[in-house]
């Protein structure tokens, strides 16, 4: 089994394989903005943060936005419980991230970039600063007018949301903005801004260098390319692995399970819970369950009530608190489940809560509040007995 995993990784390693960074720089210098955007679009690369917005379309929109000033932001605020793959990329392959930013900058016409680093990753700061210095000079040497700066996050989960992140860089309270307008037209300091996460940028660098076809040949029609996964929970092997998108949950379970997996949480706290009976059906990818990369396995020793309460506790703390459905909804889901579990509310109240979760999904201002419905509905539906009794 471990053999299979090794073989898979070998086959699909893009970020983890050795590459020639100066070759990538040359590719960026040589290619026109249009060519860069074209390659990215053809590759089918979609945002690796979870939402999966096509990267090529994002860059094109920012390129077409008229402005004398534009920005590229690397979202290194990885805060999803159960994910730590960006940390690994930043630690071992930060060159790729900086090169990806440079490619984005060239594509859209930005001269300044920011890396917004999660507060908890402060230990990486000296190392990244060193790299930034080195690459800023490298860019200069190649007459690329692009400078990268580092900004530290303050540890709020919502600052992973791109507009909250922008507010935070601007020195404001980290609260998501109203959208539209989107950052590609009005972002940092109201200038067009591309925000991509660490992994997306690393892949972008590779695609600009190698062309779209290799990347596009991996995965499925809707979910192209390789993807970093953080495997945790009741798994026999844990860690960060680069695997193709579009796998069945079962395939993953086969690779990592301790033999007793009853549920897999895909996409961290804001993702979906897949029960054993659906392992063979569900696809990990944009045609199935999109994910930022966190995969948590649960075996039969786990209480799914506890799991759900943990998530809800997390959300009711981490909601930025500005919009009603999320601020109040998270509290109500938490208290409601607790009340059902302890018998203070009848079983039927669960329907009320599921309706509430669905309402949050279409009314909350940002992805945080909208995605609480994912774990809530999937866990409470599939593990109703564990929740209620």
């Amino acid at each position, binding site marked *: 089994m471990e053999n299979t995993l090794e073989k898979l990784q070998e086959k699909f390693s893009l970020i983890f394989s050795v590459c020639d960074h100066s070759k990538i720089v040359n590719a960026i210098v040589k290619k026109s903005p249009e060519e860069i955007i074209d390659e990215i679009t053809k590759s089918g690369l979609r945002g690796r943060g979870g939402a999966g917005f096509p990267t090529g379309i994002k860059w094109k929109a920012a390129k077409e936005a008229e402005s004398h000033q534009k920005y590229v932001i690397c979202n290194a605020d990885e805060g999803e419980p159960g994910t730590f793959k960006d940390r690994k990329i930043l630690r071992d392959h930060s060159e790729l991230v900086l090169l990806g930013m440079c490619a984005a900058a060239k594509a859209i016409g930005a001269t300044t970039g920011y890396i917004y680093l999660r507060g908890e990753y402060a230990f990486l700061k000296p190392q990244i600063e060193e790299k930034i210095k080195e690459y800023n000079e490298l860019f200069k040497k190649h007459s690329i007018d692009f400078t990268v700066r580092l900004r530290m996050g303050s540890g709020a989960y919502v600052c992973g949301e791109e507009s909250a992140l922008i507010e935070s860089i601007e020195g404001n309270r980290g609260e998501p903005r109203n959208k539209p307008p989107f950052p590609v037209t009005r972002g940092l300091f109201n200038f067009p801004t591309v925000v991509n996460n660490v992994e997306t940028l690393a892949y972008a660098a590779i695609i600009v260098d190698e062309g779209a076809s290799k990347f596009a040949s991996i995965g499925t029609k809707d979910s192209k390319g390789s993807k970093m996964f953080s495997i945790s929970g009741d798994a026999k092997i844990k860690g960060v692995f680069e695997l193709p998108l579009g796998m069945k949950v079962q395939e993953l379970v086969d690779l990592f399970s301790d033999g007793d997996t009853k549920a897999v949480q895909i996409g961290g706290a804001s993702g979906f819970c897949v029960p054993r009976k659906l392992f063979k059906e569900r696809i990990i990818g944009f045609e199935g369950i999109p994910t930022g990369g966190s995969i948590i396995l649960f075996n039969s020793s786990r209480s799914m009530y506890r799991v759900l309460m943990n998530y809800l506790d997390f959300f009711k703390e981490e909601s930025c608190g500005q919009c009603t459905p999320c601020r109040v909804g998270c*509290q109500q889901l938490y208290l409601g489940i607790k009340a059902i579990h302890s018998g203070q509310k009848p079983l039927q109240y669960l329907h009320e809560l599921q309706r509430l979760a669905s309402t949050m999904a279409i009314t909350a201002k940002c992805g945080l509040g909208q995605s609480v419905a994912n774990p809530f509905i999937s866990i409470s539906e599939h593990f109703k007995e564990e929740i209620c009794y």
Partner: protein
Amino acid sequence: MKTVMLTINDKKFEVPDNYTVLQAAKEMGIQIPTLCYHDDLCVAGNCRVCLVEQKGMRALQTSCTLQVAPGMTIYTNTRRVREVRKTIIELLLSEHADNCTSCYKNGNCELQQLAKEYMVDGNKFIKTIRYWNIDDSSPSIIKDDSKCIKCTRCVRTCEQLQSVSALYSAHKGDHTKIATFFDKPLDEVICTNCGQCINRCPTGALIEKNYIQEVWDALDNEEKFVVVQTAPAVRVSIAEALGIGVGKISTGKLVAALRRLGFDAVLDTDFTADLTIIEEGNEFLHRVTKAIRDKQNVALPMTTSCSPGWIKFIEHKYPDLLANVSTCKSPQQMFGALAKTFYAQKRNIDPARMVTVSIMPCTAKKYEANRPEMYSSGYKDVDYVLTTRELALMIQQAGIDFEKLPEEDYDSIMGKSTGAAVIFGATGGVMEAALRTVYEIVTGKEVPFQKLNITPVRGMEGVRAASITINGTKPEYSFLDGVTVKVAVAHGLANAARLMDEVRAGKSSYHFIEIMACPGGCIGGGGQPIPTNLDIRKKRAEAIYEADMQLPIRKSHENPEIKQIYQEFLKEPLGHLSHTLLHTHYSKRL
């Protein structure tokens, strides 16, 4: 202007392309409920009750934030929209202490109104009221966090309109609250007591501290002689507070109502507004004379001092410029000081048993009346301050049918006033009134504007400026002949700050600046009827200028009672008695 076509509820409409869906719908006569939205403020989009469906979008969209676009298709009234709005109101109520029957905002509360319209079940969700703390430390404002829906209207008001930022959103998640610096009580933070936050709070979370019971007690006490004064702006808003329409002048009915309530003397703050013009006008001339004729170093521009919100603001934020502020007390405080001295003597009443009440458009006046220096009569000069809203409540409590009241006149003395005093109620009014008098003192001629209406200082622009060249002076002011006096007017403290930054930087070319803390001046004061918006303020201001035109005397120095008080009591402007009773000093505040 570019326009776009969009479809709302299956009807096609054409609207300007800078509209939001909310604006477009409103224009089409389609109501969409709102809570965090306010005409005066930037859009927040956080309450989510204004959600609508946009074709092609999975999630609902907030109509207050959504810009119209060509071909857009919107539904404002689907089953889904109604259900979702209802759920949101129910969520808000779950963290809300909804004891409407004992709430000051009962009957005038946007949350309550929505709860009624959507027939919500207030107990659907588990109650989670986290903050029961009621902050009544301020003499003007009560902040009750258990009623707050976190719409941030107050935060945006305080920051954008007033540039004070006393309130902000603190913490996150279930701990989110509207807090002050370090959660200190309101009277310990930088707050001007302007009450603009109250005017925009959709619930009972921010209300004025009311002194209705104290006033009833005084009225019911046989021993007490209760004198009431009414500010200029109240006469054009009291009807509105009673639900009788915006922009109605009801001076006569106001007087009648106060008499029915049992006040022993119904007098007019407008009288001391006229007096302020005499004192402040002379102070201005004094400063200008020193500066221009004697080449002395005096603080110019001089700024007005009748707005207590503005005074507290400058004490906090520009203490280095306090010398620029006129030393005149506000008309309210001049009135209080004279009521318990001059008036008491004239009417032979022991000032110790006199209670002075003022009816003000302003919450900061409550603070002002309680300042320790405001005891120059030997007693507390002004005992209680009621807002327009509080007076309306008293009139209702007394069962007075306001509309049926006859028009009555103020008592005398200290009841007569002029058009110049009335316009104190609108932004620019003090300046206009002062110029009418100052110009005439200097030249012996009327200010050269048609019908005395100095229109450049009128209006709702944040900062307005005007200049008047003085021609043909009296001999004693010959040094002013040909001098162009430059004046400016600002309302709303953010605009005041713009002018003060210039003064601080030494870049101000003005001689005289009028500042009112509230948008629109006193007609938009923190104690005025709720709701408020630009249209409403304009209507109130129009009524003010109409009241001016209706009065037989329109210049403060021609008020016969003013002439009389100088003859009998004060002797001369800026004289010794004026100094003790009518002028004051300011202090730096942290």
